[in-house]
């Protein structure tokens, strides 16, 4: 595997309520690396620390110990502002509950990462967002508010939004968790397609063994430790 690593975790730990009687370590020394273009599933029982791990990799939370590098940069030394910027420009999130902004249209939601990064909306961002909405099959719904869209449509908007700035890393936390099988397959296929197109690294939390089997690699987390990390047969698929 010669592709450059997008994320590298070494001995990463996370404890909550540090220094209090209810201190609990949720992640115990995670070693993990994800290369450009890799499409990995993160599975494990509920409460095993999947979301925590994703939030740490996504720079929403800081680890308690260990090392986290993104794009070769050690994140420990970065300031709050640098972290925020890195998160905005290099990482795309897809959450289980779409987490769209209800006050904005689908188009505006997709433009939002660019609006934040550049300070204001512009024509280029709008064109990109429209193209993305087209790609997820929602061009006709661009001016609708999230509340006017179905669950599957909302999640597609969320995916389009995650891709808006062409991030090097996509983190998806149970993106198909509350969708029916058919819609879930569609969403998954979309992610897979973008992964192939843009060569970004993807880490996708899922409970669905069927979907996990269609990833390049399955990382299984049990009680805050990586129990196994294996390539799938799918990797050999064309």
């Amino acid at each position, binding site marked *: 595997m010669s592709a450059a690593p997008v994320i590298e975790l070494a001995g990463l730990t996370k404890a909550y309520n540090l220094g209090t009687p209810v201190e609990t370590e949720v992640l115990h020394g995670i070693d993990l690396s994800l290369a450009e273009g890799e499409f990995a599933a993160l599975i494990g029982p509920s409460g095993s620390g999947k979301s925590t791990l994703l939030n740490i990799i*996504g720079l929403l939370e800081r680890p308690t110990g260990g090392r986290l590098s993104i794009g070769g940069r050690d994140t420990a030394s970065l300031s*709050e502002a640098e972290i925020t910027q890195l998160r905005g420009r290099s990482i795309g999130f897809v959450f289980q509950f779409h*987490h*769209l902004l*209800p*006050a904005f249209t689908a188009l505006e939601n997709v433009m939002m990462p660019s609006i934040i990064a550049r300070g204001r909306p512009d024509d280029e961002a709008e064109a990109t967002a429209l193209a993305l909405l087209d790609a997820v099959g929602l061009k006709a719904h661009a001016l609708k508010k999230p509340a006017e869209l179905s669950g599957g449509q909302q999640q597609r908007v969320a995916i389009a939004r995650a891709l808006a700035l062409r991030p090097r890393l996509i983190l998806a936390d149970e993106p198909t968790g509350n969708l029916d099988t058919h819609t879930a397959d569609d969403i998954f296929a979309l992610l897979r397609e973008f992964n192939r197109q843009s060569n970004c690294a993807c880490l996708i939390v899922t409970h669905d063994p069927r979907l996990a089997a269609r990833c390049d690699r399955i990382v299984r987390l049990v009680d805050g430790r990586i129990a196994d990390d294996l390539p799938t047969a799918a990797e050999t698929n064309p």
Partner: protein
Amino acid sequence: MKFRLPFAPLVALRFLREGRMQTLLILAGTTGGVAVIVFLTQLITQLQAQIVDRVLGSQAHVVIRPAEEVNRRAIDDAGFASIVEPRAQRLRSIDQWENIARLAADMPGVTAVSPVVTGPAFAVRGQASKSVALMGVDAERYRRIVRMEEYMVAGRFAVEGTRAVIGSELAKDLGIRMDDKLRVALPNGRDELLQVGGIFDIGNRDLNRRWVFVTLPLAQSLLDLPGGVSNLDLTVADIFEAQPVADRLRGATSLNVESWMQTNAQLLAALRNQSVSNNLIRSFVVIIVALGIASVLVVSVVQKQKEIGILRAMGASRSMILQIFLIQGAVVGAVGSVLGSMLAFTLLNVFSAIYRNADGQPLFAAELEPRFIAMAALVATCVGLLSALIPARRAARMDPVQAIRS
């Protein structure tokens, strides 16, 4: 190229639009608060200006009189108990009044100086006799002290020879019309036959009854003050600078110098108290409006927790979140000040139509000075910003993960 709002105002306005009911409520509160403040300020400023204007309509801003005569004790010995009675003040002239007048006229802030000879007399016509104040003036100069020409109901404010100008009450009491004759008699036995060349109504019954204007030389000779004047009347550029001007003149001349602010000390104290209570009301309203804006925004921050988390996850910095809520406060303040000024204008119109003076004129003008609107806009926007500070900081400090997990 269409206009596109930058990130923070864009999100702030969208949040305000989304929380329709809350936004309407704080806007209503801010509008009401601004309206009360603007209305009160405009009303009180107008009424106070009117009162001062009315008082100064018949008064000099500063009057210079001879120094009071006091009794000096011949033996200045602390061992003696003594009663020192004030002396009755007789009519005297200001020493070298021409020099004093020149000195006063050269003083910065003084715009007019007019010599006046005044003393008691009786106005006699047939059997009737009225006690009056003889006022010897140079009409041209006195006009710059009291705007007599504005008060004339007949004739002009001009005195020459034995032509005099009297008040409407005196004219009525003695049954005098224009060009009628009128005799004035003085305590010293002198008298003179005057011809009425003008009748004024200065809006004050007492003065309309008492003032009899004649030429300076005539009054001087009748009152036994040849070449002298009993007081110098001054007009100053800024009426509230009258006191310092008076103080400086007193220091320079050691004469008895009084400003209208001393003469009307009680009135001024009343006006000042009114201003104090007005300020108190305004402060309370500002505080209440600020608390209203702050509390609604605090609730809004809690409600928007998830959106804030999403924005942060997409790369929005803390300061961007802070700005979103500060802008909301400022917008509420600014819009509230516009609506509030409009409401105040409406109130002024309504009340000026209802409340009228005895003469049927509106008690106050239904006009709003632009500076009050500007002041309201500035204050309301700042208050909005400041009230948003605490909620905005809470929003900025919020943990994005908490919002996203739930």
